[in-house]
């Protein structure tokens, strides 16, 4: 009676499921936060109940002791220890996470070169094309199954631009990016956006800065109807010290003006809705850091202004926190380039002091930690480069959840290797790799 309909229904549901979004990278963090708030509320009620029924102070204390004091962030409880762990041998990513690896075409249909930005759903890849080197001219979607492209918008390049459209970020049904040009001797940063459903690009807002040539928007994120971004660069009037000027916001629909979010001086955007402070602002921050310093120690929720502070084990070195995890490593030996000296240790711990571990990458001759922004990719994977004994440098991803290590880019026959676009994705969901087997996409959301 119903077989065509039910079959169509099965197909439709199954296909729709493939179009479901990926879970937020900070899902666990959000869940823990909600759980804690609820437990606090419940503990309050339970305590009152105990008082009535037992009147015993011992019981009352134990109930209250199990709840977290709202005025005292979880982080201030004593951090757990850093347990020594051994990192396993790297396994080629195609073998370790076959479900996460997909082939990408060298060029789009029609022959244009492209860059992959992020995945909008399981099959829809957001890409950009360029009219000349780094000069993005179009944003499109490429369907990995049907292999069709659809234009979202063209990206105008304001005249005089010295940094072309960059930092593409998606949220609230829109895509936003920034460009930079000089006006009256000052750097002007413009934020642009377009609807993901397709349509003309429009200017969101602009800000002017007295910053050095290498000043740029560090990160840009969209949420709650607004674009948020943070700048980093050396102030031209302050002896070349990198500084963060705080987090700016403007309505993503356009037509508004940019303003600094109050109380965010020194903060950097992590990913909606999180900002962290004190922000890592320049490439040398980690080297200059004092022992015990924690970058992004304070995590602030843009939706309600609530903050929590990381509570971490004491180490010789500085921590660098993302949304859930913090990373640190022992200072590199001076004669690093010689490849001798002690093998540096790497430390990982969650903001709340759990999951602490220390390890030596590969147990091999040396490893080179990528400094990047200190984030774990997708709030879970630690990217690094390593040169195992007798081997050549390769790109690896350490999975904090399972302890697995995937080699994502191994040297090719000619001695070259590349992991392109490792962190072009603002959501850090995808890694794009040039391998001996062609261009590959690693969808970190698919790693189980």
């Amino acid at each position: 009676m119903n077989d065509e309909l039910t079959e169509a229904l099965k197909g439709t549901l199954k296909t729709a499921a493939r179009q479901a979004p990926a879970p937020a990278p900070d899902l666990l963090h959000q869940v823990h936060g909600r759980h804690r708030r609820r437990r606090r509320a419940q503990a309050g009620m339970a305590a009152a109940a105990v008082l009535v029924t037992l009147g015993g102070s011992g019981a009352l204390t134990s109930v209250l002791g199990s709840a977290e004091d709202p005025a005292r962030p979880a982080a201030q409880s004593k951090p757990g220890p850093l347990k020594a762990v051994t990192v396993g041998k790297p396994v080629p990513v195609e073998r370790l996470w076959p479900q996460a690896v997909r082939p990408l075409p060298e060029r789009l249909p029609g022959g244009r070169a492209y860059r992959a930005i992020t995945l909008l759903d399981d099959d829809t890849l957001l890409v950009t094309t360029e009219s000349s080197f780094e000069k993005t001219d179009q944003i499109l979607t490429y369907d990995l199954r049907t292999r069709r492209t659809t234009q979202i918008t063209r990206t105008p390049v304001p005249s005089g631009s010295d940094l072309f459209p960059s930092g593409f970020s998606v949220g609230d049904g829109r895509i936003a990016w920034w460009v930079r040009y000089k006006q009256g001797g000052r750097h002007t940063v413009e934020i642009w956006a377009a609807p993901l459903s397709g349509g003309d690009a429009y200017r969101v807002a602009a800000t002017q800065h007295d910053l050095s040539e290498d000043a740029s928007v560090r990160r840009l994120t969209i949420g709650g109807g607004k674009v948020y971004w943070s700048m980093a660069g050396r102030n031209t009037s302050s002896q070349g010290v990198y500084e963060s000027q705080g987090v700016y916001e403007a309505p993503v629909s356009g037509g508004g003006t940019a303003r600094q979010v109050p109380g965010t001086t020194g903060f950097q955007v992590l990913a909606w809705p999180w900002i962290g402070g004190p922000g890592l602002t320049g490439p040398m921050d980690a080297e200059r850091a004092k022992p015990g310093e924690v970058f992004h120690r304070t995590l602030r929720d843009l939706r309600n202004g609530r903050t929590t502070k990381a509570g971490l084990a004491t180490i010789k070195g500085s921590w660098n926190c993302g949304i859930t995890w913090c990373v640190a490593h022992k200072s590199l030996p001076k004669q690093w380039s010689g490849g001798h000296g002690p093998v540096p240790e790497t430390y990982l711990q969650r903001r709340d002091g759990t999951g602490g571990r220390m390890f030596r990458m590969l147990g091999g001759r040396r490893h080179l930690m990528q400094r990047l922004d200190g984030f774990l990719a997708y709030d879970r994977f630690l990217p690094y480069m390593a040169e195992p004994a007798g081997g050549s440098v390769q790109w690896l991803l350490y999975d904090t959840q399972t302890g697995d290590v995937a080699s994502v880019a191994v040297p090719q026959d000619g001695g070259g290797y590349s992991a392109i676009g490792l962190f072009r994705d603002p959501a850090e969901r995808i890694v794009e790799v040039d391998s001996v087997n062609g261009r590959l996409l690693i969808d970190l959301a698919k790693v189980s």
Partner: protein
Amino acid sequence: MDDDGVTYEEFVTTRAQTLLRYGYVLTGNPHDAADLLQESLVRLRAAWPRVVNKRDPEGYTRTIMARQHISIWRRRRRESLVGEVPDGQYIEPGLDRAEHDPRLWELLSALPRRQRAVLVLRYYEDMSDAEISATLGISRGTVRSQAARALDKLRTGWHPAAERAESRSSR
């Protein structure tokens, strides 16, 4: 405490995508799906020590997702649960082709939440009516009547002319 946390976290990390897909077909939109998943995971967190001993955290989570989704609906509107039990059997042929029918997807969004949930459990989760009844906490008769109503509504709005002609000739 950390051991429990890690286990729960492992569960969330490894199953979140699958559960979000399920949430998406249940709710029909990404925001509600994310919300439903988050809320259900918070409940799972509270129940974790209990649930993990009973072997099936995923089944538990799927059940709270389905129930939660319906209870939100229940609060919003009431519907008579008395319905007639349809005759006949449902044939569930194996799914070889996974085709998306945007019209059908749209029609699904017009269904009351419980009717939609019954269809999702039956045709996406491949559950028997007995399992659906246990999952949603409703009688098997209600499962069948809800499914029949939902399918009726879908059929009325769905017009694949060729397929209908084909089905008539095969009958």
